[in-house]
C-alpha cells in the first residue's frame, strides 16, 4: 500500500517537455546554427555586418525612446486612472485598452491618413507633398500602442500594492510627494522594470510599423522581413537574426530576474486600493492632462480606422461608402474564418498545456523543472519574425533530418508547407501565457485541498480530475482569453509559414496596407477588432454562464415573488 505517484502526470510532463525542446528550443538554436555555419566570403560577411549594424542602431534608437515614452505613459496612466478621482475615469480605463485588440501595425493606418502623402494634415491642410515618415512616425505609433502594454502591467501593481505601507509613511509625517518617491515607486519597481523590458522587446520585434511608415528608416526586424520576402536570402537573414537576439535576450533575462523575485508584498487586496484625496491641483491636472493626451491618441487612432473604413478614397474622395464592407462580406471572409480557427485551436491547446505544465512544475518534484520553465518562456523573448525564421530553417527538413531515415520508403513528413505548422508555432510561442497564469493561480491555491481529497480516500488520478482540474479552470480561462487576442493579432511568427489556403486576416491587412489601400485595410482592421471583441464576449459568457444563469434565475424568482404577493411591494 505504498503511495504511488501517478504515471499520468509524469507522462504529461515528459511529453510537454520533449515537445518544448523540439518546437521552442530547436528553432531558436537553428537560427544560430544557420547564422554561424553560413559559409560566405569574408568580404561579404563584413558587408552584412555593416548592414546589420546600421539597422541595429536604428532598432536600438527606436526601442530605447519608445521604452522610455511608453513606460512613462503607462505609469502616468496607471496612477491617474487608479489613484486620482475624476469624471470620466471609468470610460478612460476602457478606451486605454483599445490597442490590445488590434495588431501592432494597425495604428499606422491613422498615421497614414493624417500624415501620409495624401494625409489630412500634411497634404490637405498644409499642402506638403512629402510626409514625415521615418523615425518620428515609428516612435509615435509604437509608443501609443505599447504604452497600453506598460499600463496593463503597472496598473496591476498599483491595484495590488498594500496600502498600509503608504498609510504608515503618511502617519509618520511624510508628504505625498515623498511617499510616492520613497514608498509607492520602489514597491512598483519590479513591475515597472518588467513593463519596460516587455515594451523594449515588442519594439525590437515590430517589423510592420517600420515597413509601413518607416520609409528609408528600417530596423533590424523590418530588414529581416525584407531580406526574406524580397531577396529570399536566408543566410543574411540568419546573421541579422543572431544580432537581433542579443538585445532581446539581455532584456529577457533582466525581466526574468525581476519577475522571478517574488512580487508579494501585498497581503490585503482591497478592490480599488487607495486614492489620493488631498492632491495638489496642478499635479492633478497635469496627471489627467497627460493621460488624457495619451487616451486621446488611442481614441483618434481607432476613430480614424472607423472613418477610413467608410470613406471612398482617402485623400482624394471623402464621400461615404459601403463598398469595402460589401467587398469583405462577399468575397474576403475566408481569412477571418482562418484567423478565428487558428486562434481558438491555439488558445485551447496552448492554454491547457501551459496551465498543466505550471501545475506540474509547482506541485511535483520532477527533474529539470526549472530548465523546462526557462525553455517554455524563452519564445516570449524571441521576436515573432525570428521564431518564424527558426521554423522556416528547421522544419523544411523531414523531422529535422531524422525522418529521412525512419520514413525511407514512405512520403517524408515535412512540416513546412503543411497547414499545421502555423498552429504549432503559435501554440509554443504562447505556451508561456498559460504557464504564467497557472503560476499566478497556484500562488493562491490552498495546498491542503489536494491533501484533503487524498485524506478522504481519493486516488492521485481522482485528485487530479476532481480537484486540480476544476481548480485550474480560472487560470485556463484567463490564459485562453489572452492567448486568443494574441493569436488573433499575431503576424511575425506565421508570416513566412502561411499557405495561401490558410491565410489569416492580419496577414491580409498587412498586405493591403503595404500596397497603401487605406480604406480596405481600415475596414478589415475594424472587422478584425469587432470580431475579436464579439468572440471575447462569447467566451466570457461561456466561461461564466453558470453564474450568469444563476443571476438571471435569482432575478426571475424575485420578480415572480413580487407578482405572487403584491402586498410585498408596498413594504
Amino acid at each position, binding site marked *: *500500500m*505504498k*503511495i504511488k505517484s501517478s504515471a499520468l502526470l509524469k507522462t504529461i510532463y515528459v511529453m510537454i517537455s520533449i515537445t518544448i525542446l523540439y518546437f521552442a528550443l530547436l528553432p531558436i538554436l537553428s537560427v544560430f546554427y544557420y547564422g554561424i555555419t553560413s559559409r560566405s566570403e569574408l568580404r561579404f560577411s563584413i558587408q552584412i555586418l555593416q548592414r546589420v549594424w546600421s539597422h541595429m542602431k536604428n532598432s536600438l534608437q527606436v526601442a530605447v525612446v519608445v521604452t522610455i515614452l511608453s513606460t512613462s505613459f503607462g505609469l502616468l496612466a496607471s496612477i491617474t486612472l487608479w489613484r486620482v478621482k475624476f469624471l470620466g475615469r471609468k470610460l478612460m480605463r476602457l478606451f486605454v485598452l483599445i490597442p490590445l485588440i488590434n495588431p501592432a501595425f494597425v495604428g499606422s493606418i491613422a498615421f497614414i491618413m493624417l500624415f501620409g502623402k495624401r494625409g489630412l494634415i500634411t497634404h490637405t491642410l498644409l499642402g506638403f507633398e512629402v510626409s514625415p515618415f521615418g523615425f518620428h512616425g515609428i516612435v509615435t505609433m509604437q509608443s501609443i500602442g505599447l504604452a497600453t502594454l506598460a499600463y496593463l502591467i503597472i496598473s496591476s501593481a498599483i491595484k495590488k500594492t498594500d496600502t498600509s505601507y503608504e498609510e504608515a509613511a503618511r502617519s509618520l509625517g511624510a508628504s505625498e510627494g515623498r511617499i510616492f518617491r520613497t514608498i509607492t515607486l520602489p514597491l512598483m519597481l519590479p513591475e515597472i522594470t518588467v513593463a519596460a523590458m516587455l515594451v523594449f522587446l515588442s519594439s525590437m520585434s515590430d517589423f510592420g510599423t517600420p515597413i509601413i511608415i518607416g520609409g528609408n528608416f528600417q530596423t533590424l526586424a523590418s530588414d529581416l522581413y525584407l531580406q526574406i520576402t524580397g531577396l529570399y536570402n536566408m543566410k543574411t537573414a540568419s546573421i541579422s537574426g543572431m544580432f537581433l537576439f542579443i538585445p532581446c535576450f539581455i532584456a529577457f533575462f533582466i525581466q526574468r530576474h525581476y519577475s522571478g523575485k517574488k512580487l508579494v508584498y501585498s497581503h490585503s487586496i482591497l478592490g480599488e486600493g487607495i486614492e489620493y484625496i488631498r492632491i495638489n491641483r496642478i499635479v492633478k491636472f497635469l496627471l489627467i492632462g497627460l493621460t488624457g493626451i495619451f487616451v486621446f491618441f488611442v481614441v483618434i487612432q481607432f476613430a480614424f480606422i472607423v472613418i477610413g473604413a467608410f470613406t471612398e478614397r482617402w485623400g482624394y474622395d471623402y464621400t461615404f461608402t459601403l463598398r469595402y464592407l460589401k467587398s469583405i462580406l462577399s468575397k474576403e471572409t475566408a481569412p477571418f474564418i482562418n484567423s478565428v480557427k487558428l486562434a481558438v485551436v491555439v488558445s485551447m491547446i496552448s492554454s491547457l498545456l501551459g496551465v498543466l505544465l505550471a501545475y506540474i512544475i509547482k506541485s511535483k518534484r520532477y527533474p529539470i523543472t526549472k530548465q523546462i520553465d526557462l525553455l517554455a518562456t524563452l519564445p516570449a523573448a524571441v521576436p515573432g519574425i525570428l521564431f518564424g525564421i527558426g521554423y522556416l530553417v528547421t522544419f523544411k527538413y523531414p523531422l529535422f533530418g531524422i525522418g529521412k531515415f525512419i520514413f525511407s520508403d514512405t512520403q517524408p513528413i515535412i512540416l513546412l508547407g503543411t497547414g499545421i505548422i502555423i498552429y504549432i508555432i503559435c501554440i509554443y510561442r504562447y505556451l508561456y501565457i498559460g504557464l504564467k497564469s497557472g503560476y499566478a493561480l497556484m500562488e493562491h491555491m490552498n495546498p491542503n485541498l489536494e*491533501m484533503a481529497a487524498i*485524506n478522504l480516500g481519493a486516488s492521485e488520478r481522482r485528485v487530479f480530475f*476532481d*480537484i486540480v482540474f*476544476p*481548480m485550474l479552470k480560472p487560470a485556463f480561462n484567463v490564459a485562453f482569453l489572452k492567448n486568443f487576442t494574441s493569436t488573433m493579432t499575431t503576424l511575425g511568427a506565421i508570416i513566412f509559414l502561411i499557405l495561401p489556403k490558410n491565410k489569416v486576416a492580419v496577414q491580409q491587412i498587412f498586405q493591403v496596407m503595404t500596397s497603401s489601400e487605406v480604406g480596405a485595410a481600415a475596414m478589415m482592421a475594424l472587422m478584425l477588432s469587432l470580431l475579436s471583441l464579439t468572440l471575447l464576449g462569447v467566451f466570457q459568457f461561456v466561461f461564466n454562464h453558470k453564474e450568469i444563469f444563476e443571476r438571471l434565475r435569482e432575478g426571475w424568482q424575485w420578480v415572480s415573488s413580487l407578482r405572487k404577493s403584491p402586498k410585498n411591494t408596498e413594504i
Partner: protein
Amino acid sequence: MGIELKEITQKYGNLMAVNHVNLSIEDGEMIALLGPSGCGKTTLLKTIAGLLPLYQGTILLNHTDISEWAPQARNAAMVFQNYALFPHMTVEENIAYGLKIKKVDKRRRKEKVEEILCKVKLQDYNDRKISELSGGQQQRVALARALVIEPAILLFDEPLSNLDENLRISMRQEIRKIQQEYGITSIYVTHDQEEAMSIADRIVVMKEGIIQQIGSPSEVYLKPKNRFVAEFMGIANIVELSQVERINDNIQARIFGSSIKIHWPDSQWNAVNNIHIMFRPEDVEIRDDGQFEGRVKWLETIGSVKKITLENTGNTIIAEKRNYHKSGFNFAIGDRMRFMIDMSEVYVIEN
C-alpha cells in the same frame, strides 16, 4: 480504535521535526498535541494521516501496522486548519465527496449527508457555495466532511485558529460533544493551552519535536515535568531554592529569606543544588500576616482580578488577588506587600 506510535521520527533536511515519539492512544480517547509553532505537532499529525511519508518508526492502528499504508487506505479523516473545503463544490458535494469515493450509492449518500448536516446544525445548507459561508459554518462543513465517512480516527489540525474568541469557545465544546457521542479516537493539534485543556482527555506537550510530558489537563497544569511545560500551560512562578536539605520525604530550604518545608517523597531527588519550585499565581495569597514580603513592581487589573508582580531578592513572582474591590485593596507600585504561598500546591521541577 486505539493508536500506537513507536519511535516516530521525521526530518526536514537536517532538522528533526519529530524526534523519537512514542505515544499510545486508547480507543475513543481525545488527545491534544500542544506546543508552540514549529514544535512538530502538525508534522506528527500529517504523518499519522499518511500525508507525509514516514522517515522512521511504526504506526499501529488497532494493533495493525499501517506505517506503509497509503493515506487513502488509513481511514483517518482530517479537519484542516483553513478547512481545505473544495471551493468549486457545494456544501453537499463537499460532504458527499468521501462517500462517493467509497462508492456509497446515491440514496444512502443523500441520507448520510442530511444526517450529518443535522448533527453540525447546518440543515438546508446543502446547495450553498463554500464562499457563501461564514468561518464557523465552513468549520462545521469541514467537520461534517470528515465525520461522514465514519473514520477510524479523526485528526484536527488547529481547526479553530481562524475563528474569533467566542466562536472558538462554543465550537470546541461542540467538537468535544460530537467526538464523545461518536466515540471516535481523535488527535487534536493546537497551540492554545486553554483549548487543549478544555477539549482533551490527555495532553501531549511537545517542544522541538520531542514530547515533554503526557498527562491529563490537570496533571500538565499542576504537575509540570519541567520549566517549559510549566510556562507553556499558564503563568508559572519558578523560584530557585537555596540551602536545600532533605529530611525523609521533605525538602527543607530557604526562599525569599525565609525557610520553608515541602513534602516531596520523590526518591530520585537527591540533588541538593539547583532545585526549583513552581507554583501558580492562584496559590499566592496576599495577607498582612504572610510569611514572605515583596515589593510591588507592577499592577494590572484584569476584570475582577488584580495581577501583582512582586519582587524579592532577585526573584520575580506573579500573584493574583480576586475580588480586590471587596477587600479594600490599596497598594501601589513600590509598596511592600506580605504574602503566603500554599505549600501543598508547590511543585518541584527540573530546570
